[in-house]
């Protein structure tokens, strides 16, 4: 009986989170369009609803009803599976993310590790999509993206080790609790820089949006996709942006905790911090050009890798000295 109840509660939580995430993602796209539009002297969506507020819904509906095209020479099974393989890991990760002190689906003691493991699977969908499309642009995009995401996963993984050493736990809740006094970003600025750059690369955002660089590869790995399958890629991209932002908030900015003198609920703090992160993502997109493939790799291996190793070494050394 207890078990059934547990399962039911978990199911309800999952239902809420998945749906809220999708809605939030839809509106994140809206916000991105608006912010970029205003950076570029445009208004952005204005037609559907007040200031285009219903635009995401209209877009969603449009994508639902669009014709679903599978290219003749595509590998049908893999082609259909690929968007799913991208979206599912992006959503599964939400199972362990702490949105506030009380609201989360589950907490496991390898939380952070779980997040890294599952989000590393997103690259499969991308590679599958690129290969199954049987198009050269898609294949090039997939190859780029596989190389890019694999490399930057390493830096991402190493950059979280610093905060982990300070917190002494892989459990996301405990990491947040460890920052009650001082956010780790002040202890770990190097780690944060590397984390942020790697996060941009992992989510394929400007200036690392090579896998889908539209001026070179048309749309990279999802060139051949349309309709709902395309929407899956889109959803997954923004969902993983949110995941990576949440991890950043948890590791470096004290998660849902805010300063004591401003009495706001934890969830509100979380949303504020998430919004700020997202804004930086969008801001960068409006400002920066794109790196070239070899430059991206050079930045990673010749600059970020030594930096993050230095950070781990320094953290260990200082922790040994002072704690």
């Amino acid at each position, binding site marked *: 009986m207890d078990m059934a109840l547990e399962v039911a509660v978990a199911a309800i939580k999952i239902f809420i989170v998945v749906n809220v995430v999708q809605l939030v993602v839809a509106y994140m796209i809206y916000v991105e369009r608006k912010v970029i539009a205003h950076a570029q002297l445009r208004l952005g969506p204005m037609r559907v609803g007040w200031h285009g507020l219903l635009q995401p819904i209209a877009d969603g509906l449009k994508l639902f009803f669009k014709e679903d095209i599978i290219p003749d020479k595509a590998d049908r099974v*893999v082609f259909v599976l690929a968007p799913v393989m991208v979206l599912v890991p992006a959503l599964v990760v939400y199972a362990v993310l702490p949105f506030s002190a009380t609201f989360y689906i589950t907490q496991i003691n390898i939380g952070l590790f779980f997040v890294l*493991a599952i989000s590393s699977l997103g690259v499969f969908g991308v590679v599958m999509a690129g290969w199954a499309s049987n198009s050269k642009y898609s*294949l090039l995009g997939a190859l780029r993206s596989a190389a890019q995401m694999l490399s930057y996963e390493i830096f991402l993984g190493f950059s979280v080790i610093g905060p982990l050493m300070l917190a002494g736990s892989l459990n996301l809740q405990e990491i947040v609790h460890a920052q009650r006094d001082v956010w780790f970003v002040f202890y770990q600025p190097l780690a944060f820089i590397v984390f942020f750059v790697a996060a941009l690369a992992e989510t394929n955002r400007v200036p690392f949006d090579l896998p889908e660089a539209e001026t070179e590869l048309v749309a990279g790995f999802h060139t051949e996709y349309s309709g709902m399958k395309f929407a899956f890629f889109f959803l997954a991209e923004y969902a993983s942006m949110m995941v990576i932002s949440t991890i950043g908030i948890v590791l470096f900015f004290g998660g849902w905790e805010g300063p004591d003198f401003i009495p706001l609920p934890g969830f509100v703090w979380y949303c504020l911090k998430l919004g700020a992160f997202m804004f930086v993502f969008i801001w960068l997109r409006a400002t920066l050009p794109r790196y070239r493939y070899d430059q991206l790799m050079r930045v990673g291996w010749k600059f970020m890798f030594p930096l993050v190793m230095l950070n781990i070494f320094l953290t260990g050394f200082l922790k040994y000295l002072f704690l």
Partner: protein
Amino acid sequence: MEIYFFYMFAGGMILTSLLMITRANVIHAALLLVLTFFFLAGVFVLAGAEFLAAVQILLYAGGIMVLYLFSIMLMNVEVAVRMRQWHRQGVVVLVAAVLLGLEIWAVLGEVEFGAPKQWEWSLGATPGNVEALGAVLYTKFLFPFEVASILLLASMIGAIVLAKRTIER
């Protein structure tokens, strides 16, 4: 309850590995191997080794298999599919299969069937899983661990040297 999950994961593992070795398309085989890793990770979780499960997914599925796919995709799969898949190695295969069967039979003879009471069914409840692993790895097994690292390092450098020579040529 857990035993059903176990059978589910184990059955899935066997099924996907069988499918994997019979596919003509290398990409499909590689993707099925990923699925196999997933089921294996599930078994690890059931066994209370969630760290191992995460490593399984992160390294094998998320890392190594992507590299496999990466290199497979650069090949011309269409040509490979049309190629002959069964080589005349029936006799060798038969001998190997018989030997393996004997081994399995011998091992299974040792194991008591029934309720596996020595397994701790725990999902995230045990506190010291990761810590215990770390402690053991860096104290008792430090030397083998370092030896393994150096071995990997050496092989990595070797691979780089080989690849670099090709590029320079």
